[in-house]
């Protein structure tokens, strides 16, 4: 074969490779997700027998399951949740366990794949006969596991703040509902007199749903959304978006970007001359760990909305931070998802002790009103929607890579995953329920 023919074939192959890669990278992901959901549904349907009864309460130990991604793209984040879950269990065991039984942990790897989460949850419930499962991070992992837990009438404690619009009788949500994170963030901006919001997020479920809430809020509260931009996951080109931001006349930015995209966005924001004291960015997914990954120079003085910061000044938190660092390393920060996971173990313990039983139905019945003095402050379980009362904190990122509270809600906020109690959100909750 002559070189020039090789070159021509090369050219064609190159073109084909481009198109193929493009197709795979977009359609491929979508396709994978449907399969994942399908498998999750399958996993749920053939497990229609009530398997919760196989929990063994006769010995002096009780089994619980953790399902976190210890490999794959989510591993960086979910490893920290697994760490704090283990710490909570170790603490409880050191103090005599639950109902006199030591907790025995069965750890499973969700491998950053929703279908694997569903499969491992099923294993934990039906093969390992655990009394409760803790874990999950992405909304897709939770949605994949949900049918499994409902079919087997088992318990899942899910630690992440999320987009709301869900309340399964078999899941306890220890992270923030939208009215405990997004709404307080907007309340804060309103209070500070910001009127023109620019929304930027990654193109997937959480940012899209969160921004629907933001738009409804703005409409009902005399604010204006002057721009709404989504970038493909992992996108690193923000020139046009930052140009749009500069020319939109926005006075604040609501940021729901994920992971790496934050780096490119904040670098572009800074390089274009925007500043935190003129057009601040309030972020929904930048916690203490992300600050170091993004580079503190790029996000210093920007705002975040969470329910916990490492810097919270109370006795429980000081002990929590000290113990965590002693156990896992002095350079490890503590963050909202970790604290929420840690708290969820204690809430389960509280429910079991109140019910005096590990039985799922008894635990669910006892759940309402169970409290725990968590590092984030006192939390309380809402028996109706299985979320918890949480205090909301708006924080400012400091040059010490930590986040410092600049505003907090008046005490713990009652969870309202469907935003039913807000007049401006009527259209939102109506839309969801009719689905």
């Amino acid at each position, binding site marked *: 074969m002559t070189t020039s023919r090789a070159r021509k074939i090369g*050219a064609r192959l190159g073109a084909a*490779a481009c*198109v193929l890669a493009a197709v795979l*990278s977009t359609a491929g992901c979508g396709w994978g997700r449907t399969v994942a959901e399908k498998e999750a549904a399958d996993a749920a349907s053939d497990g229609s027998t009530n398997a919760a009864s196989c929990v063994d309460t006769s010995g002096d130990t009780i089994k619980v399951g953790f399902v976190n991604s210890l490999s794959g793209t989510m591993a960086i984040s979910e490893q920290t949740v697994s760490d704090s879950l283990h710490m909570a269990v170790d603490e409880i065991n050191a103090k005599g366990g639950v109902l006199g039984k030591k907790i025995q942990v069965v750890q499973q790897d969700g491998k950053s794949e929703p279908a694997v989460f569903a499969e491992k949850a099923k294993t934990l419930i039906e093969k390992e006969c655990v009394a409760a499962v803790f874990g999950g991070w992405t909304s897709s992992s939770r949605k994949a596991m949900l049918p499994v837990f409902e079919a087997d009438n088992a318990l899942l404690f899910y630690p992440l703040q999320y987009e709301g619009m869900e309340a399964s009788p078999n899941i306890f949500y220890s992270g923030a509902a939208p009215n405990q994170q997004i709404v307080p963030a907007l309340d804060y901006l309103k209070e500070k007199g910001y009127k023109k919001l620019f929304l930027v997020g990654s193109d997937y479920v959480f940012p899209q749903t969160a921004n629907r809430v933001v738009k409804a809020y703005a409409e009902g509260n005399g604010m204006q959304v002057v721009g709404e931009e989504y970038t493909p996951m992992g996108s690193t080109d923000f*020139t*046009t978006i930052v140009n749009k931001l500069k020319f939109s006349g926005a006075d604040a930015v609501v940021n729901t970007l994920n992971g790496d995209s934050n780096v490119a966005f904040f670098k572009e924001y800074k390089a274009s001359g925007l500043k935190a004291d003129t057009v601040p960015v309030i972020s929904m997914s930048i916690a203490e760990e992300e600050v170091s*990954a993004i580079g503190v120079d790029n996000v210093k003085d920007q705002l975040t909305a969470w329910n916990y910061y490492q810097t919270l000044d109370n006795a429980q938190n000081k002990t929590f931070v000290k113990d965590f660092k002693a156990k896992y390393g002095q350079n490890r920060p503590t963050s909202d998802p970790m604290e929420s996971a840690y708290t969820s173990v204690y809430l389960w313990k509280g429910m079991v002790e109140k019910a005096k039983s590990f039985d799922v139905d008894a635990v669910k019945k006892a759940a309402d009103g169970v409290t725990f003095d968590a590092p984030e402050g006192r939390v309380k379980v809402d028996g109706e929607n299985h979320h918890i009362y949480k205090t909301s904190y708006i924080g400012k990122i400091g040059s010490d890579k930590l986040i410092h509270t600049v505003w907090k809600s008046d005490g713990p906020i009652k969870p309202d995953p469907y935003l039913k109690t807000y007049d401006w959100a009527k259209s939102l909750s109506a839309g969801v329920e009719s689905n």
Partner: protein
Amino acid sequence: MGMLFPQIVAGLSNGSILLLAALGLSLTFGQMGVINNAHGEFMMAGAYTAYVTSTIIGNKAVSLGVALVVGFVVAGLLGLLLDVLLLERMRNRPLDTLLVTFGVSLVLQQLARDIFGATPVYAEAPDALTNPVTVFGYSFSAGRLFIFILSIVCVAALYAVLKLTPLGRQIRATSENRDLAEVSGISTKTVDHITFFLGSGIAGIAGVALSLLNSISFNFGTTFIVQAFLVVVAGGVGQLKGAVIASFVLGLAQSAIELPTSASIGQMAIFLIVVVFLQFRPQGLVSIRSRNLA
């Protein structure tokens, strides 16, 4: 409207990034016909070089300068290694190189994950490059301006090497007619190695430069590889001029389309434009007429 000027600048900046990513590829793919899927990982190697130098050298500007040189050498040597160990054995077997280099790209990604961890890191850029520069009352990213200039310098340097030096003549001769070059006394094997070293080295420089805009992780290169191929194919394989024009046309087109729509649509539109364009001009923007019978 007021956004026209900054958008044109954004488009030129995007074009220069595409160009920098595609330049090395236009050598290895264009001149040698090797579809190197690991090209993005050579960029990643350059980016990690920037990270390593920034942790060793305190002065950020010096660190960047050192990284540009070391990044070129590191990525170049990786390329040379790939060429000597694997690709040399499969000249004129584009399908095999496609798969082999894909495998190499996966191996390099895992290697980076093992060495540097899965958490993204970042190389601290000199302050002068993270702050804005103001032109005609508009603020622009100094880092992007630096990348723009660097891409022009790289093109000029590569052009000079190809057109003015004996090595350049040998590269072009080998690419035009390998057999004839061989009988004229050129060691095409050596020329191939040097070409691959240069092309991969430029990927390293691109990686160092692009680390100014982004965090560095094991999948750093995957963001750019597809677009780099797009530029080379649209520009006309083996044509430096074509790659330059294609980069800037695509960069400007993307920022023009993204302005009234969204980032997702902008990215998609670029693919659409290239696919449609190649239907009418499969040989790309610029092509050489050759007397080859193939």
